C-alpha cells in the first residue's frame, strides 16, 4: 500500500456551526476593506482633531501649492489645505450616503415586504411602478429631481434615495416571496400569529441577509452618485466640501496642480471599493454553512 496520508482539512477551515462574524473575519479582502472603512469613518468623526488646518480658511499666499510638509496634499485654488478639506469632506460624503440609503430603505423595505407577502394586485401595482422607476438611468433621474427641488446636498441625496428605493424593494420582495412559502410561516400562523406579527418577527429576520448586502453595495453607489452630482454642482454647495465637490473644484486646475484632483478621486474610489468588497464579504458569510470548497 502506498503511504498516502489522508489529507487533513486545512487548519483554517471553520466548523459548519461557525458564526457569521467568524466567517467574515476569515475573509481577508472584506476584513481589510472593513478596516480601511473604519479608519475613514474614524477620521470623519474626529476630523477637528486630525485635520492639520482649518478646512475653510483660505490663504492668498498659498494658492495651488504642491504637497509638502505644511500642506500634505497641496492647497487648492483658494489656498485651502486639501488634506484637511478631504478629511472634513468625508463627513459630508458619508452622511450623504447614509441618508440616501436610509431613504431607500424606508421606502423600499416596507413596500418590498408588502408586495412579497400580500401578493396579488397589490404586488402587481407596486412591482410595475418599480419596474418603471428602474428603467430610468439612476443619475439622470436624480438630476431631474434635483432640478425640480433645487440644488443642495440634502435634496440630491433624497433624490438618490428615491431612485435606489426600487432596488431595495426588489431584493426584499424576492426574498419575502420565498420566505412566505416556508413551513415556519404557516406554523407561525397556526400558533396564532397575525400578519403584521408574522412580517415583523418571522419574515424580516429572514430577508435581512440579502438586504444588508444590497444596502452595503448601495452605500458605495450612493457615494459615487453623490460625487457625480456634486461634481456637476448639484450636490454640496460651497463653502461646504464633499469629495465629489472637491473633485469638481480641483479638476479645472489639474494642469497646474494634479494632486488634489487625484487625491479626491482616489479617496472616492477606495471608499466605494471598500463598500463593494464588504458587501461581497457579507454575501459570502451570511449562509448558515460555508459552501464546500469555499
Amino acid at each position, binding site marked *: 500500500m502506498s503511504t498516502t496520508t489522508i489529507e487533513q482539512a486545512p487548519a483554517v477551515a471553520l466548523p459548519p*456551526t461557525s458564526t457569521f462574524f467568524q466567517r467574515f473575519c476569515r475573509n481577508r479582502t472584506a476584513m481589510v476593506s472593513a478596516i480601511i472603512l473604519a479608519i475613514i469613518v474614524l477620521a470623519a468623526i474626529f476630523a477637528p482633531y486630525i485635520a492639520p488646518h482649518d478646512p475653510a480658511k483660505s490663504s492668498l499666499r498659498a494658492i495651488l501649492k504642491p504637497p509638502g510638509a505644511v500642506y500634505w496634499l497641496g492647497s487648492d485654488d483658494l489656498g485651502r489645505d486639501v488634506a484637511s478639506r478631504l478629511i472634513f469632506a468625508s463627513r459630508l460624503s458619508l452622511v450623504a450616503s447614509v441618508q440616501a440609503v436610509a431613504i431607500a430603505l424606508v421606502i423600499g423595505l416596507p413596500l418590498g415586504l408588502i408586495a412579497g407577502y400580500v401578493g396579488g394586485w397589490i404586488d402587481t401595482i407596486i412591482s410595475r411602478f418599480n419596474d418603471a422607476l428602474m428603467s430610468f438611468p439612476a443619475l439622470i433621474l436624480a438630476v431631474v429631481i434635483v432640478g425640480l427641488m433645487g440644488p443642495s446636498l440634502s435634496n440630491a441625496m433624497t433624490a438618490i434615495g428615491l431612485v435606489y428605493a426600487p432596488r431595495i424593494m426588489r431584493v426584499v420582495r424576492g426574498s419575502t416571496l420565498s420566505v412566505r412559502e*416556508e*413551513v*415556519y410561516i*404557516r*406554523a*407561525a*400562523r*397556526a*400558533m*396564532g*400569529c*397575525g400578519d403584521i*406579527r408574522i412580517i415583523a*418577527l*418571522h419574515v424580516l*429576520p*429572514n430577508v*435581512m441577509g440579502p438586504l444588508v448586502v444590497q444596502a452595503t453595495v448601495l452605500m458605495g453607489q450612493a457615494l459615487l452618485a453623490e460625487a457625480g452630482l456634486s461634481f456637476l454642482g448639484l450636490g454640496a454647495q460651497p463653502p461646504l466640501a464633499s469629495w465629489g465637490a472637491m473633485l469638481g473644484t480641483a479638476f479645472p486646475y489639474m494642469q497646474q496642480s494634479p494632486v488634489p484632483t487625484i487625491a479626491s478621486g482616489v479617496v472616492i474610489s477606495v471608499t466605494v471599493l471598500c463598500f463593494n468588497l464588504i458587501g461581497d464579504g457579507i454575501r459570502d458569510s451570511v449562509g*448558515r454553512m460555508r459552501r464546500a470548497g469555499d
Partner: protein
Amino acid sequence: MDPLLSLKDLTVQFPSTHGLLTVVDKVSFDVGRNEVVCVVGESGSGKSVTMQAAVGLVQTKGGRVTGGSVRFDGQELVGMKNRHLNRIRGNDIGFIFQEPMSSLNPAYTVGEQIAEVVRRHRGVSRAEAWKRAVEMLERVHIATAAARAHDYPHQFSGGMRQRVMIAMAIACDPKLLIADEPSTALDVTIQARILQLIKELQTASGMSVLFITHDLGVVAEIADRVVVMYGAQVVEEAGVDALFATPRHPYTTGLLRAMPQVALERGEDPVAIPGTVAQAHAWPAGCRFNPRCEFREDGPCTTGQVQLVRDDHGLVRCIRADALRTRLTQAVAA
C-alpha cells in the same frame, strides 16, 4: 357532554384552471374530549386540507370554506375573524406539521420560538416565558433542555426538531392538538418515539388529539376512533378495534391489506390498491372509489351518489356494505 371539536358538512373549494375544485366535500365528524381521532387517507384525499380549513388556515393558499360549520368548545370557527382565531390557534388548539426540518424559523433559537408563543398567548414576562420554554423542552424529553434552548434549529436533528415543534404546540396547554402527519418525514425508530411522546402527553394532560396520517400502523398504535377519507369525502368511521377487525368499506380493506404487518400475519405479501386517487376535477360518477374497487358492481356503484350510512359498526359510504360484510372481514382476517 358536547364533543370538543365538531365538523359538520365542512366543504372547502379551491379555484383552479378546471374551475372551482371541491377538495373537502361535506365532511362531518367529531372529536370528543380526551379522545384520539385519526384521519386516514391517501395523499390527495383531502385530509390535511380538512384540518387546515377547520382552524382557518386555507385562505392563504387560495382556498375557501364554502359551507358547513366547525364548532370548537362551543364556538363557531367558520367565519370567525382572524383576530379571534389567532387567540384560539396556538392557545386552545396546537398544530404540528409534517415537515420538522422546515417548520422552525432558522432566525431564532428554539427557546425563543417557544417563549414567543407563550408570551403571545399568556402575556407573561420574558423570563417566565423562557422558563416555560425550558420546561416544555424537558417535557418532550430533550436532554440538557436549559442549554439546548439556546441552540438554533439547524443544530437539531429531524426527530429533535419535531420534539421542539410538539413542545411549541403544547406550550399553552391546548385542549386540542392537531398533528398533520408528524412522524411521516422521520426514521421509523424516531417515528415510534414521537408517537409514544404524543400519546404520553395526551394521557398526562387529557387533551384531545386529532391525528392525520396515511399510516395505519400509526393508527393502530394511538387512535381511539378512525375516520377514513377518500376523494374529499368521509368513507368510513369506526372505533379503532372495529375498523381493524371488521372493515366495512373496500377502501379501508385495501389500506389494511397494503399494510406489511397485516399481510405478514396472513402469510401474504402486502397488496397495493390498484390505480391512484382521481383528481378533484374528475371524480367518477357514483362511488368515488369505484374505478379502483375489486367489488364494484356496474350500475349501483357507478351511478348516482353514495350516502354515508350509520350502522352498528359506525359510518360507511358503500352501497354494497352489507353484501360485502363477510368478504371484507375475511380479506384482512389472519
